[in-house]
């Protein structure tokens, strides 16, 4: 869930996402100086819209991927990149309707939010100071605008 009215564009989600998911040290002070530079999986679009992967039900990225690198976790339904098999063809980058998937600046793999599938709770929602990012189950999302 992203609540546009609450997002202040503080970029904290990006900062901690890169530190927690992408850095080696997992400590901000050290992560800043790491090379290759850690990459965030969530992006603050424009002034006030933090966006991460929607994990679409009919995901275009999975369909576009030629070798099954883009997969869905059967248990949780989360879409993720199996990095070792990525051939860097960037089909997913082109197919994503939200522009969430990006080529990694330092390695030839696609980077994408997997909603912290190994952590239990997404770090971006945990650190969001205004709770613009929240994790909640919505069954009525097709019928209700939010």
């Amino acid at each position, binding site marked *: 869930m992203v609540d546009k009215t609450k997002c202040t564009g503080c970029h904290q989600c990006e900062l901690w996402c890169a530190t927690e998911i992408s850095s080696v040290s997992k400590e901000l*002070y050290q992560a*800043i100086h790491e090379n290759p530079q850690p990459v965030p999986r969530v992006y603050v679009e424009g002034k006030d819209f933090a966006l991460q992967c929607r994990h679409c039900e009919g995901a275009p990225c999975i369909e576009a991927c030629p070798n099954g690198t883009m997969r869905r976790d059967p248990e949780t339904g989360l879409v993720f990149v199996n990095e070792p098999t990525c051939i860097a063809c960037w089909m997913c980058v082109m197919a994503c309707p939200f522009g969430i998937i990006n080529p990694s600046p330092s390695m030839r793999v696609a980077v994408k939010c997997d909603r912290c599938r190994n952590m239990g709770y997404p770090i971006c929602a*945990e650190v969001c100071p205004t709770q613009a990012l929240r994790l909640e189950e919505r069954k009525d999302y097709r019928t209700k605008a939010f």
Partner: protein
Amino acid sequence: MEFIQKKTIDQAVEYFLPKAAESEISLVWDRYEGQLPECGFCETGLSCRDCLQGPCISHPFRDSNKMGVCGKDKDVLASQSLLRLALKGTMTCLDRISEFAEEVESKQIRPRNKAKTDQVLKEIQGLFKDGGSLMMKEFPKPLIQGWKENGILPEGVARDLFKSSQTLEGGIAGVEEILLRAFKSALLGGTSQWLYGKLKRSVFGDQDPTKIEVNLGVLKNKTPNLLICGPLSPILKKKILDVAEKMGVQVTGACTSPLIPPFHFPILTGYGSQEIPLMTGAVDLVVAGNQSVNPSLFRVAKEFEVSLISADGLSRRKDIGKFAREVVEQAIKSFDFRRHIPRDIPEIREVAMMGFSPEDPDIKKIVEALNKGQLKGIVVLSGSNNVKYTQDQETLLMTQELLRNDILCVSQGEASRALAKYGLLNPIGTKKNCGENLSKVLSSLKKEIPPVLDFGEEGALNLLLEMMRVGKKGLQSYPIVACFPEANRSSEVTQALWMVAMGIPTFFWPALPITGSQKTMDTLSKLCQEKFGSKLNIPMEKKMEALTKADLIIKTLKGEEGFSISGKPWK
């Protein structure tokens, strides 16, 4: 976010923690938890709020916003974050001294030594005007020469503070210049702190080491208790003490120096737990300044119906004597009104000997012991509490370890008051806490002497200058280290920079907001090494055991490169 850590090691404070939780009083620890995670950009110095086009950040992980709107990159942002702190800290010192000097000038008190007071007042005027060229003669020549060569010799408020603050507005100053400006303003602050001590001595007379009581147990059940919170003007404190003694009101303090010759008063608690004394129900009135006073005091005071009087309000009180009288009378009235409030005073108290000066004990003996190798070194401890660490734990554990290793610990300001609560300023504890050699040296200095020597608010500088004079060599050649185990206020940053500029390796916890830029950190350490022959060590590991920290200091005193960031030396 949850923050799981022991809150404090002070039993008196711990006693009140469940009570605060029960009655839903928010304390500093609750509020810290509410703030988590703190802004990572500000924490690493990569943010700027200096103009209205911002606020800007330099994003460490995204290429699109590496620079602020005006073009400040991460190196400039990080070095300006340090400059901003140094400027604010310097103003803290200047505020204290200008208020004190103004009150002395307006003849609110008859000074002990009139001639000396007049001279110090002239020096203070000089400090504001041209950086005190006259008074600078009292500093050792090589030190002055070094500062002059690097262009950081104080040149008065206009050149040091105003010009430096304009660097934040813009300009093309590079990292090195910004950092040097931080040192320049810090030197002005340090000098004013030193002059403050000088003025205090000439107005009130010399201070002998005095035994005072600390912690909440000193509060009295059947007497009005008045609490002085924050470093108020010494003249106001003296007048309050004067009237209070006559009217039978007990004066206590928090975050303030307890020694105003010929008076002294007990200290209740430290910076981190300044709301706790009010929770005893036994404090009837608080006189609070602005510095070091948490605005949260107001809420707790309301809860316990404590009168709160501001000593630094907008409406200036010209007649201090009258104000002091009003305050004490109000305390008595408040005591009568508050009879229905139960008083819950934990029986925890400790004795502390404070107020040593370079003349007493004899500096020559200390220098001799250093030369002979009886003392492994000297550590100057400063700094108040920081909620990021268990209250007082770092300061206490590190000091105990240093004492065991025959290192003379000298403390000042809030650090002394923290150590006092655990008996490290009690002469009885000398044998128990100190290594064999250290206790021999200490007992040769004075008959009754505590393990840690407190040099008051302004004394450690005096001690260091005196050491340079006695030993006839720079501080770089002595094994001295300054240490800020739980630093918090901007004035402590100023103090740290001043120590470094004197040539003393300094350890500072927590990390200063410059860690976002490698270039700034490299320039800072190069600058300290080349220009002052010292180091500002800012270990970046967030979790480090107090004993490991003490070990780093011991290694530095021995001349080994012990400090590190994740095991690598900080160049």
